[in-house]
């Protein structure tokens, strides 16, 4: 366990990035207002029921895996009757490398809701949710891959900026309210309290390597922060990798220790979602929301790793006449290379650090849907992720079908993660008070063209919904679960 922990930390130490990958909420969910958890995208949405209760761990269970930009067919593809990798002698390494961008990533996003419920009151609809989220993104520069595959070339600067990782595990306790301000205007707000369990953040990741016949130059300004409340970190005296030992109480978790990890008050944050839902005419629905305004301040067991250097290697300075039987050239090389390795390692500094704050990735949604007739509706959604150094834009178009009260599918097509190859769908299934839904932005693409799919996400949830019959008599009667 100790070795695993050390390996993880070591990997994280050599990784880092200022790039952030947007945590995934399926855009398709935006068009499924009847699903209670759609208010995660816009807190102004009100479920069409008086009360709902989500199934523990399944309200929803969500997962996303994505790779940008590499897809399966970039790595493995058929040729001359067999399946080869790009590293095969007949493989096309250059084509593989051309796919890569400056910084590439692999992202995982896993979330589960421990408890979710909502209820309607005269002053609006309230919802309460406790969720656990894992966001993990690993970034790798394209030049790093080029370096590994093509080797070291002459007079080339390898820009390795952005190498790193952002990993977070935290719990989210949220309380939402949606109220009708005017006859056709709804407003919602969701307040969130966040409890961080563990984090690794890349603060800065500037790294370059210049190689030529004359010299190699390494320039680095990298810093990573980590909050590891579950482990004891012991630093060496001479800058070696620290020892990391998991806390002994993790092996015998008890009711007294679990809250300390799950609701760690030292790693606390706050968040806020805001949204409005406007219906200028009966067929048209326009909404805007701003979600994940907030931050987490990590204070518990905070550590810092930095690697700052400007190191020139010109070769080993050698005077061939200094060698003798007692000091061979091989001995000299060994000794000097060891010294160099020590020097380079010497720039790696470990230490305890003060608190640091990570902002949540704020998202702005703006969408509209239009009901063409009683069966088909169309929607369009713009999603803007406001990241540290840039914004990322996604656009999703949808076609919704209404096949009675029990099963209502939606098909979507999105541009996201720099890919147009995203066909998704969603359905909501109702049987009495039992509601089940499944939403994905790109699973159809993954089924149809798995070799070129760069990401897969889905939400799956089950709820018990009560009081919807009363509402069926109202304006939403013909579309109880799907807008």
């Amino acid at each position, binding site marked *: 366990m100790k070795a695993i922990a050390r390996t993880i930390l070591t990997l994280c130490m050599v990784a880092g990035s200022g790039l952030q990958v947007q945590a995934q909420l399926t855009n398709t969910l935006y068009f499924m207002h009847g699903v209670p958890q759609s208010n995660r995208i816009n807190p102004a949405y009100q479920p069409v029921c008086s009360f709902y209760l989500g199934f523990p761990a399944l309200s929803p269970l969500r997962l996303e895996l994505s790779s940008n930009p590499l897809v*399966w067919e970039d790595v493995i593809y058929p040729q001359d009757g067999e*399946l080869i990798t790009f590293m095969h002698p007949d493989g096309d390494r250059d084509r593989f490398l051309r796919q890569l961008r400056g910084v590439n990533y692999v992202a995982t996003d896993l979330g589960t809701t421990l408890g979710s419920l909502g209820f309607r009151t005269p002053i609006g609809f309230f919802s309460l949710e406790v969720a656990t989220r894992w966001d993990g993104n690993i970034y790798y520069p394209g030049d790093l891959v080029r370096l590994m*595959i093509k*080797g070291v070339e*002459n007079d080339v600067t390898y820009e390795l900026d952005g190498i790193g990782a952002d990993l977070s595990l935290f719990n989210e306790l949220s309380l939402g309210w949606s109220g009708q301000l005017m006859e056709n205007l709804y407003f919602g707000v969701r307040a969130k309290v966040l409890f961080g369990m563990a984090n690794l953040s890349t603060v800065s990741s500037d790294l370059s390597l210049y190689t030529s*016949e004359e010299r190699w130059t390494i320039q680095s300004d990298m810093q990573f922060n980590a909050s590891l409340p579950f482990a004891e970190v012991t630093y060496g005296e001479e800058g070696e990798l620290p020892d990391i030992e998991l806390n002994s109480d993790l092996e015998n978790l008890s009711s007294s220790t679990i809250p300390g990890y799950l609701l760690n008050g030292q790693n606390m944050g706050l968040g806020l979602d805001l949204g409005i839902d406007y219906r200028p005419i009966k067929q048209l629905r326009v909404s805007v929301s701003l979600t994940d305004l907030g931050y987490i301040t990590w204070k518990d067991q905070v550590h810092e790793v930095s690697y700052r250097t400007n190191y020139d290697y010109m*070769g080993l300075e050698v005077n061939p006449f200094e060698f003798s039987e007692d000091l061979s050239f091989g001995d000299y090389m060994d000794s000097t290379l060891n010294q160099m390795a020590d020097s380079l390692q010497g720039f790696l500094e470990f230490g305890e650090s003060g608190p640091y704050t990570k902002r949540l990735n704020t998202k702005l949604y703006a969408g509209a849907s239009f009901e063409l007739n009683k069966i088909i509706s169309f929607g369009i959604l713009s999603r803007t992720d406001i990241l540290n150094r840039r914004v990322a834009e996604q656009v999703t178009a949808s076609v919704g079908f209404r096949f009675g009260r029990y099963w209502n*599918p939606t098909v979507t097509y999105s541009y996201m993660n720099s890919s147009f190859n995203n066909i998704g769908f969603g359905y909501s299934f109702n049987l009495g008070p039992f509601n089940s839904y499944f939403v994905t932005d790109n699973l159809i693409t993954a089924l149809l063209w*798995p070799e070129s799919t760069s990401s897969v996400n889905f939400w799956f949830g089950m709820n018990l919904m009560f009081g919807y019959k009363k509402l069926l008599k109202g304006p939403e009667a013909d579309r109880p679960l799907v807008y």
Partner: protein
Amino acid sequence: MKRHTITLLIILLAGSLAVTTCNKEYFDLDKLSDEMELRMRMVAPVVYGNLSMKDILQLFDTVEYIDTSPTGLILFSYFDTVLSLSADTAIELPELDAIEFYLDTDNDIPVTIPVPPGDTFNLPRRTKSVDFVLSGENRLDSILLQGGNARLHLTSSFRHSGMLMISSQEIRDRRGNPFSETIVISDASGSFVHSVDVDMDLYTIAPIYRNDSNIVYLDFDLSLINSGNTIDPGDSCVVSATFSELGFYNVVGFLDPEDLASTSGSIEVPIWSDYPELASLEFSDPRFVFTMATSVGIPFAIDFDSVIATGVDGSQVELTKYDGNTLEFKAPGMRQMGETVVTDIQIDKTTSNIQEFLAVSPSEISYKIEGRTSTVDGDNTHFILDTSRVNLSLEFLLPLNFRSTGFALSDTMEFEIAEDGIDTTMIDSVEIVLTTINRLPIELAVQIYMLDNDHQQIDQVFDDHAPPILGASVVDIDGVTTEATPETTRIKFPASKIGKIEQTAYLRVEATLNTPEKPVVDEEEPFVKILSSYDLKYKIAVKALLKINTREL
């Protein structure tokens, strides 16, 4: 509505199945080839450095032979001390001894002192001459004694009291007073014996030079007080004066110490014995330098009657000085007493046959010389102080001012790149990039032959007509570098050549060093000078293409 739903489902499922089936080939992992090949380039600086002249010359010799002239010209210097004398070795003062007898006659008749009893009878003065004998032909004008003792001994069987005075005008004390010492004969019993020791430190002896001898006169004056007794046959009074353990603070005169500088010896010249190929170098200004440093006030002349070079092959050539084989060295004059005078006398190509002498590439130079006092300057007054020293050295100087058109070195060495060898199959090609900035006016061409266990040539590293790997610097008319020459040499090892590395057991390295070519046709090749400030900067980088195939591991 239900029908629509089913229709949609069927369309979706059928479409998915059809397309997935089409793309199945991407996921048929049974057909996945496990062959992978890594083709990596590697470019890296490996080593760099700056070889100073001192470093480079260690190739040929040990540092102890390397010297630098005031102009920075490097020279090999082979040195031998021919002569090293101190003053006491040059001149050793002899012991002076004089004995005087009184009334030692053959008469059988007692003698009566011809004065009334109680009166004093003065015997006539007697004078003894003592020769100050030194080796060689010397004229001693003065000797300031350092230490020494004069023992005056008197034995008297006269039954009279009296006294004896010993004196010398040639021996004077520090105040200039003549040496004079009196022994009182206080016992008239006829058995008087007495000795007196006199410390001679700071006395000056000024011998009288006569008939090639340096003479000191001692006067003996004996007075007897008549006791009324007779002087019987057999009675005597014997006086001895012995000056012994005489050192000197200085000696002045004409000094010609014999055998002062008669010696022989030899100088080892390892550069030619270790590197006989250097015989192809023609040195511009080789020379012998005799250096005498002397505080002895005697001008010396050295006659060398045989300076012989013995080559590695045993051949011999004698050095001949065109104007005779005598070397005259200066000495401090009387006004330079206490100073050291240094005289350098060079024997070079203008005064001797030294070029011919070195043509045998001598591994040893033997010499035989004799020294004598020089009379060239006509000054016949010399001196030696007690602190005087004379050192004579012989130096063979070989300034690195030479030309070469065919200096070649060859060596065969065992080749073992690693204990377990290397897997050359992973190396597709290698290129070694040698970058130099050469301030030496020497170009270096190298060929390396790869030999198998039977010393048969497998391949060679450079093409036959490859340019020198080191270009000579640009020199001026004096042979001094004015501009360094940069050079980049790329040594390529294609796969075909790398494959032969494993078969290579020996490497034969052949190197040719040449000085710059003559600037004008029909002119002689210029001589070049090697200064201590020259250096050779070098960098070695490697460019390799590695090919690693999983099937070949």
